[in-house]
């Protein structure tokens, strides 16, 4: 029977099953300070051990400062959580990339950088954006703290198999249109809960043409459509990205791995429960207007009216969102001004994202009254950007150049907005209060965010020529 990529990875990880109740093996367990302390203490209470510390990797990212390397820079509560992670890792023999380590950074940025994520793996983390790693053809998904404890103790998870969805994007992207715009357009099309209970496989010529970093941006936001995971079949791009990375296999193991990875694609005629397709040529730079990532339009469109919504629930959501966002139905996006810009997060903080933003930043200077920060995703990204002089471009243009971390994506540190602030953000969620109570978030690509910083309002990057 023809198998999908998801079927192949799933089948290869079945340890045991009792009807539909499956026990699957986990190859990589990524951990951070926020969702693990209760799991470690649960283990201790039951006198259990971490079964495979060698498959478990930790970093500090969510609740750290982006201005200081001091662990207590964001107060004693954050510091206790960070120290608890360090102690738990030490006690259990888990490799950790703490604040100040050259390779520290956002877990979903550093894991691929280190070569920890390989095609065909299963990857979990107590973080919904674990979906990022599907870019490598790994089955990667976010889990809760009870499941983190389960993986610690057994290196497995009990799971029912999700349904499958194929999202095909064919054609060639226009100038100034990015991976971020593709995924926002997909979520806009299928809706914020459009892929709940599904694993998505992204395919088509526009997806094949993407770099690994762009694929990570796509898969990262899979959860914003409600899906459990998003996958992209590995190809030569994937292999080239991985070869020579610190934790990637070498020698005969590398050859065996590559031979296996080449089988990791959906067979002709594989079954999908749902199929969706988009034309790359139809996708324009996207800007969210509402309070979930499905509430999105192209930059040259108008803020929608509640009456245009497909049903009463969406209509009510639209009314509530317009009120929270202080927008009027029918308003032009280019008339919306911003006073904050955030370039960073596990969605868009990699070197290619910073290059795209710097290219636009170099065209001008941050507008009066706008605060703009750039937060590289990792120490490695920061070093690379500085080697290329991107930091200088940003600083000269009036942006702040910060230390790596999750930062203003969720504001667990002091990078938070004030009530009424309006932010063009390269992050993944525009929920009410996400970046600060009463603050308003518009999700955009790095180039669009940089352009908003310079103009103090949303502008279409396609009209900037160079970008």
């Amino acid at each position, binding site marked *: 029977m023809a198998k999908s990529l998801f079927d192949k990875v799933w089948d290869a990880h079945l*340890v045991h099953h009792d009807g539909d109740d499956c026990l699957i093996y986990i190859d990589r367990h990524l951990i951070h300070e*926020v969702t693990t302390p209760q799991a470690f203490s649960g283990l201790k209470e039951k006198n259990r051990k971490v079964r495979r510390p060698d498959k478990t990797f930790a970093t500090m990212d969510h609740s750290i400062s982006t201005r200081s390397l001091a662990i207590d820079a964001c107060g004693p509560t954050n510091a206790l959580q960070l120290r608890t992670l360090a102690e738990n890792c030490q006690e259990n023999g888990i490799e950790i990339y703490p604040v100040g380590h050259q390779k520290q950074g956002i877990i979903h940025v550093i894991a691929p950088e280190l070569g920890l994520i390989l095609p065909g793996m299963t990857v979990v983390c107590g973080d919904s954006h674990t979906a990022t790693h599907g870019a490598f053809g790994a089955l990667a998904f976010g889990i809760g703290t009870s499941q983190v404890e*389960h993986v610690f103790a057994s290196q497995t998870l009990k799971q029912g198999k999700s349904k499958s969805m194929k999202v095909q994007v064919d054609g060639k992207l226009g100038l100034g249109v990015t991976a971020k715009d593709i995924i926002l357009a997909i979520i806009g099309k299928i809706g914020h809960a459009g892929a709940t209970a599904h694993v998505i496989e992204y395919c088509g010529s526009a997806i094949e043409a993407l770099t690994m970093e762009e694929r990570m941006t796509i898969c990262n936001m899979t959860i914003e459509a409600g899906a459990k995971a998003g996958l992209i079949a590995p190809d030569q791009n994937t292999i080239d990205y991985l070869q020579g990375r610190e934790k990637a296999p070498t020698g005969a193991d590398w050859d065996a791995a590559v031979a*296996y990875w080449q089988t990791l694609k959906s067979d002709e005629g594989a079954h999908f429960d749902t199929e969706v397709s988009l034309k790359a040529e139809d996708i324009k730079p996207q800007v969210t207007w509402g309070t979930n990532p499905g509430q999105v339009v192209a930059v040259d469109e108008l803020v929608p009216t509640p009456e245009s919504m497909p049903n009463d629930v*969406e209509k009510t*959501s639209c009314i509530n969102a317009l009120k929270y966002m202080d927008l009027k139905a029918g308003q032009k996006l280019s008339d919306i001004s911003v006073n904050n810009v955030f370039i960073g997060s596990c969605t868009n903080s990699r070197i290619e994202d910073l290059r795209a933003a710097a290219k636009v930043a170099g065209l001008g200077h941050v507008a009066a009254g706008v605060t703009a920060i750039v937060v590289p995703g990792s120490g490695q990204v920061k070093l690379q950007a500085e080697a290329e002089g991107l930091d200088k471009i940003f600083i000269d243009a009036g942006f702040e150049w910060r230390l790596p971390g999750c930062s203003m994506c969720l504001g*667990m540190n002091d990078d938070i907005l004030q009530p009424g602030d309006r932010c063009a953000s390269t992050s993944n969620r525009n929920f009410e209060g996400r970046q600060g109570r009463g603050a308003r978030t518009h999700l955009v690509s790095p180039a669009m965010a940089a352009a908003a910083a310079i103009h103090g309002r949303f502008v279409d990057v396609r009209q900037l020529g160079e970008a």
Partner: protein
Amino acid sequence: MAGINLHSGTAVPLDIANVDTDQIIPKQFLTAVTRKGYGKHLFHDWRYLDLHEQEPNPDFALNKPEYKNASILLTRQNFGCGSSREHAPWSLADYGFSAVIAPSFADIFYANSVNNQFLPICLTNAEVDALFAAVKADPQTQIDLNLTEQSVSCDGQTYHFDIDPVHKNAMIKGLDAIGLTLELDSHIGAYESKMPAWIA
């Protein structure tokens, strides 16, 4: 952990779709290292007018006197979307809820709830509409939940809900999921011994 099977109580109507985990429990409360004490911060941004939780928002459903003792949360589609934070069901349970009824849930929230014996009940839109109408008409409307029977009874009507038999059994018995998996240790060991070197 204690199991859950029967529960009777009143419900509070939270008539909002796509309630995300940032609303259920905002990030500033995720810095704790324990599983308890999140109830007072539940729905912080909506529930309080101030940052210090001194001024309850009188317009928010949970603060209305008639819903003060509710132990069931009644809400709309895609409840619990967003992050994987298990603090979401921890805070709902710590506040005093035993169950949440909605037309649909986000996957991770649903799994986290089951793992905490916090009952997520999925009914159809029409059934949820009927419950909203009943609870809004009379806040003291009694709702009876029966996990064994997979039923919700209210106002002489009984609605059936689906739940994975594995989840159902684990919730009723309050089973230690990890302990059960560790009984399969020989299978896990056998799997590990067959892994190719590049991934082992």
